[in-house]
């Protein structure tokens, strides 16, 4: 599983794409992915908010993650 990183998420992880090992890491839902990322990178826990996009749409915590989904971490937005 690959996770796209933008803004401060990119700075926290230190790259624009983070690869999870599907066998050992294996988050099955948006909530599990958030928990995994916060565990790996505690800085994510300090953000004002943390959202996940699945296939370029905001995804609720209970959404399942499937093989081939485009997954992205959406830190607090600040456009405009």
């Amino acid at each position, binding site marked *: 599983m690959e996770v*796209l990183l*933008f*803004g*401060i998420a990119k*700075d926290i992880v230190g790259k624009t794409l983070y690869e999870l090992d599907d066998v050992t890491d294996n988050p099955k839902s948006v909530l599990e992915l958030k928990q995994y990322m916060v565990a790996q990178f505690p800085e994510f826990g*300090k*953000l*004002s908010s943390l959202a996940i*996009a699945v296939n*370029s*749409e*905001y995804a609720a915590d209970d959404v399942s993650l499937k093989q081939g989904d485009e997954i*992205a971490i*959406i*830190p*607090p*937005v*600040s*456009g*405009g």
Partner: protein
Amino acid sequence: MIEPIIEIVDNLDPGKVYQELSHPKSGGVCVFVGAVRDSTQGEEVVSLEFESYQRMALKEMRKIALEAAEKWTLNAVVVRHAVGAKEIEEPVVVVGASAAHRDACFQACRYLIDTLKERVPIWKKEYFKNKTVWVSAHP
């Protein structure tokens, strides 16, 4: 259903938006342009940088434009955001709504920019003399 004008660009030209919003059934056009201010909470800003998750940002911008077009019966709507490095006074976002009457175009324009700021995955990094800050990242 009208087709909104949705773009993420390197350089914004706010001057052209009026032509895009002009319509024979529109008595009013309201445009908001957001630009780079020279300071944030009293601290001097040197420059800014905007980054987007482009595919998703375009999708969200389009949703917002269609929501506004339906709610206020717009004749035309534009949502355009710039990305990359920006200097003081440069425009970074232009939103505009064109409607029969001014109430509708003002309310729609306000909705466009407020909702863009809440939902569209674009991130602003402020460069100060001695630090850089991803805006809104921390409480």
